[in-house]
């Protein structure tokens, strides 16, 4: 009898099962609490599982029926969903902030919905070696070239109105965590005249910069040791630092919502058609046109050739390797084909230090004439510091290991000299990142390569890629869709200057 009672209780607990059941007595334990006794019989247990499985099986049945009907996308050949599409209009190689900025602006400027099919190919989904996320994240207008100042001003304008550009209706507003603390450059006697020239260029371009004498500097920032400083240049507005990962994700999220296809894979090969032309002196010139890009899936031998009309090289530190695949740099020495893309990775160290007595909330991004820099990180007395190494002691770029000896020898003495409070500090963390270093003149290369008709370059920014990324993205989108620069004229940054060997050097004090 009790077994029947227990069975009825079990049946009643199954939802939707139509059985008329008399209300049975529930077991009550001596403690006055209700317990449903567990039966040890296997019959009801299996029946219970059957009903739980029934729902899942009905759902699977419905899915199979929907797939069998016409109009569904089921096919017996299982395709890897991570492969890029077979055809695209524009393939952007490199998923850093420059690559996604170009993708966003291409979609922003297309005249019709779905006008250009853009695919962004990124080799590393974890972004472990990408320069974007390992950057210190600063933006400044204190350059000597007008183009650089305009790029920074435009990027600051973009970041001020970032929610207007990159905001999505059903998502949180973008918070870049922009610290409006400004940059402070210190100059000694030898380079003070360069700083004054740069100051007038910056004011002419519209940047809000002010010059400070050593006494004014000491008054404004009492923790600075003004020994050897003759002039200081302080940015009042649109300068500071922000979170690069947030900017990257904001670009990515907005671009994907506008229809850009993201693909994780490595570009290993190109298929080109070559047009052989003959110059008046009888030499041959090979003009290539990229027909398709071979994208290899990560950790796999699977690949997909993507037919494309335009390829954008935004691969950052690895752009040189990409152009080598096309034969740039492997021609005869005195021809255009013999000039390689002068972009190579250079390792830079960033150290996080903790100093409890250090400068407070008003710490700017201080850059000394010796090359040592530091900025505040958070509110807990942490700072980020580093220095650009000399040409002779460039570290090895095969890995991202940090050299702590470098801090003790090169960074700490400079820091302690400039800010006496930094004599007592502790290194809490460090990382290394690559600069996409332009060995020719340390400024970006933007434009079509002369020998490859449909490859646009947007690389070689040597540490300024992040701060110029919104404006550079817009410029490259204008080049591709409008044919020419419309807002900022960056024709001085084309590949031509490398062919004619006319460097556009930044006359900076460091």
């Amino acid at each position, binding site marked *: 009898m009790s077994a029947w009672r227990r069975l009825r209780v079990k049946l009643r607990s199954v939802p939707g099962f139509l059985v008329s059941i008399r209300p049975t007595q529930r077991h009550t334990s001596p403690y006055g609490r209700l317990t449903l006794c567990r039966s040890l019989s296997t019959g009801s247990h299996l029946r219970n599982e059957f009903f739980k499985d029934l729902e899942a099986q009905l759902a699977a049945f419905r899915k199979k029926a929907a797939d069998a009907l016409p109009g569904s996308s089921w096919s017996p050949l299982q395709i890897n969903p991570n492969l890029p599409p077979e055809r695209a209009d524009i393939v952007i190689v490199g998923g850093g902030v420059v690559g996604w900025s170009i993708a966003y602006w291409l979609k922003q400027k297309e005249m019709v919905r779905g006008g250009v099919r853009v695919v962004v190919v990124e080799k590393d989904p974890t972004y472990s070696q990408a320069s974007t996320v390992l950057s210190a994240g600063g933006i400044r207008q204190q350059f000597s070239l007008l183009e650089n100042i305009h790029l920074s001003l435009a990027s600051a304008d973009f970041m001020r109105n970032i929610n207007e550009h990159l905001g999505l209706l059903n998502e*949180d507003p973008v918070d870049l965590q922009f610290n409006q603390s400004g940059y402070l450059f210190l100059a000694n006697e030898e380079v003070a005249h360069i700083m004054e020239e740069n100051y007038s260029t910056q004011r002419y371009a519209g940047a809000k910069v002010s010059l400070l004498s050593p006494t004014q500097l000491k008054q404004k920032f009492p923790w600075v040791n003004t020994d050897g400083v003759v002039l200081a240049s302080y940015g009042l507005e649109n300068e500071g630092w922000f979170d690069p990962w947030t900017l990257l994700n904001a670009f990515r999220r907005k671009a994907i919502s506008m229809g850009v296809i993201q693909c994780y894979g490595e570009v290993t090969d190109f298929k080109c058609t070559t047009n052989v032309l003959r110059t008046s002196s009888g030499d041959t010139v090979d003009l290539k046109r990229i027909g398709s890009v071979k994208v290899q899936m990560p950790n796999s031998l699977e690949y997909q050739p993507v037919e494309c009309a335009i390829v954008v090289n935004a691969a950052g530190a690895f752009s040189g390797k990409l152009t080598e695949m096309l034969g740039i740099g492997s021609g005869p020495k005195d021809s255009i084909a013999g000039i390689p893309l002068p972009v190579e990775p250079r390792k830079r160290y960033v150290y996080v230090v903790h100093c409890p007595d250090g400068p407070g909330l008003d710490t700017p991004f201080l850059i000394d004439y010796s090359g040592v820099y530091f900025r505040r990180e958070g509110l807990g007395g942490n700072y980020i510091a580093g220095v650009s190494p000399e040409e002779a002691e460039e570290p090895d770029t095969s890995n991202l290991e940090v050299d702590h000896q470098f801090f003790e020898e090169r960074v700490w003495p400079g820091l302690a000299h400039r800010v006496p409070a930094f004599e007592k500090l502790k290194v809490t963390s460090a990382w290394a990142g690559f600069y996409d270093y332009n060995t020719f003149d340390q400024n970006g290369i933007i434009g079509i390569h002369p020998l490859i008709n449909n490859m646009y370059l947007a690389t070689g920014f040597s540490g300024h890629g992040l701060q110029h990324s919104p404006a550079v993205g817009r410029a490259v989108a204008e080049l591709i869709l409008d044919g020419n620069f419309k807002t900022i004229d960056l024709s001085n940054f084309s590949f031509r200057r490398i062919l004619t060997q006319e460097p556009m050097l930044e006359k900076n004090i460091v």
Partner: protein
Amino acid sequence: MMNSLHRCCQRSALLLHVARRCWSSSSASPPPLHTRLLLFLTQRFYDVEMLLSWRSQLTRNQLQKKNAYYGYTQRFYGLDIASAYFILSLKGGFRFAGQSEWFYADQKGKFSWDFLNHKDTPLEEVDMSYTVINYRGLCNLESQRSLRTLKLRGCPEVDDWFLARLHVFQDSLEELDISHCPRITTGGLAALRNLKGLKRLDVSSLPGISSPGLVIILLEEMLPQCQITATGYDYNLNEAEGEEEEEHMQRQR
């Protein structure tokens, strides 16, 4: 006095309406039914998405129009009258240097034109509380280099970039009130470094700063001559709340 209280009530209604504008799911309560319905439709229909983006674009355009550069007024009436007219059009208030009476616009936006009598008099105190002034609108006030007081209480469009632009008043500004502004964060407060003449600063009830106690201490260190008012923050430690929860659970067992 009563007039200003009445205006404050109107402004708080405006603030609540504007604050509900961004549909973030991380807000305290889930958005109302019609908002959720619109979001549901936005994710499924391009038309709804387009209409909603047009609507937000329209509100943005209206805001930018209100904060436009009053170039014609400047050309015909001079810089000071232009700034005064801008303030009154945005329903703010101001006081001329050397005068003791304040010129205000009422809730409907009506104001008296007596301020036109004072030509070429710079402004000394400006009260833009609960108005929609933003970074673009500040260009109309930049000419007032002898501005002493600036009140921006409860302004929904004042953000960090606005604070950074206040460096144009670095010599003259003595009092700044930026309490209850929802968009100001710690990064913007660092920009107040440039206001070296600041004597009174009010940073009460800023919802955007994460650890208010620490930030206030750092601000006081950064501006030693300034008297900082910072009310409306809950300085209780979070650990106390956790202990209360544990006691509650133990009692239930």
